[in-house]
């Protein structure tokens, strides 16, 4: 099933940027700032693509039906439609799948995390919600229940395959890679915000950094 992909235009003689957003809730908290960043990239002459991963954002696919491998295939398919050389830019959990674009010019990562950390935070949210509604639950029981069917974690229905895949996933070694933390662009960890916010200055700083890194990678 075709997924929506937000695209901003740029010059044909500059690399295009494929954006791999954070996963699950963190994607929602970052989206506004990522789109602000895409506008700035476009103004700098760099085109960018922000695809919906199957089961994420506006996708019609159920989250429980997808695996990490499906996400990799989806990214590779978006990259295959682009004629220009590609720089892959990922945020947080996006770094777990950004190696799917094998022939990229280079990679840019913001605060990558291990899949196991994502699972841990989601299971904790579930335990806390259970506690608030007077149910006792534990991490082991929740994981065990995934064998019988998708488990609901912080509003996401995840299959056992997705949980196992995330648990084992760490960002791959890719090269050339530029890796930043929010303080490098004068920003903050917007993906952690309980109430989503936006940061135009951070968006502009990220765009400028990605734009110049793409030029460096293209000149190699």
């Amino acid at each position, binding site marked *: 099933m075709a997924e929506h992909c937000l695209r901003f235009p740029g010059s044909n003689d500059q690399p295009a940027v494929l954006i791999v957003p954070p996963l699950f809730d963190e994607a929602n908290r970052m989206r506004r700032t990522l789109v602000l960043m895409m506008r700035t990239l476009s103004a700098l002459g760099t085109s960018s693509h922000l695809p919906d991963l199957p089961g994420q954002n506006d996708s019609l696919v159920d989250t429980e039906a997808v695996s990490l491998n499906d996400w990799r295939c989806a990214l590779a398919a978006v990259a295959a439609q682009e004629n220009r050389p590609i720089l892959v830019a990922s945020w947080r959990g996006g770094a777990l799948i950004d190696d799917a674009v094998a022939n990229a010019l280079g990679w840019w990562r913001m605060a990558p995390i291990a899949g196991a950390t994502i699972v841990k*935070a989601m299971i*904790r949210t579930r335990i806390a919600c259970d506690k608030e509604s007077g149910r006792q639950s534990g991490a082991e029981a929740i994981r065990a229940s995934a064998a019988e069917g998708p488990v609901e974690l912080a509003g996401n229905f995840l299959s056992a395959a997705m949980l196992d895949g995330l648990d084992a996933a760490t960002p791959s070694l890719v090269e050339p890679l530029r890796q930043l933390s929010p303080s490098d662009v004068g920003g903050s*960890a917007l993906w952690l*915000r309980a109430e989503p916010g936006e940061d135009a200055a951070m968006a502009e700083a990220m765009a400028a950094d990605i734009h110049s890194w793409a030029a460096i990678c293209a000149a190699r």
Partner: protein
Amino acid sequence: MSDGAAMVEATVRATLVDILGISASRAAAFDETTPLFGALPELDSMAVATLLTELEDRLGIAIDDDEIDVDMFETFGALVRFAVGKALN
């Protein structure tokens, strides 16, 4: 307060700034008795789970789910005491 404890306290403050989206100056005014859970509407179940996981990462500690107790989020002082106990022992 030892240097180590002061560093842990600064990390807890910075993590709260990121999660609650409050200003650094507002967080700087948090003291021992500042109430957290219940007093800050942003601090819901998901925010608490995010906070714990982020503190583990930033302080290099491991928090067992059995250790998690609502009392440790009651005040800023209680949260710092818990984090210092984990990070410096």
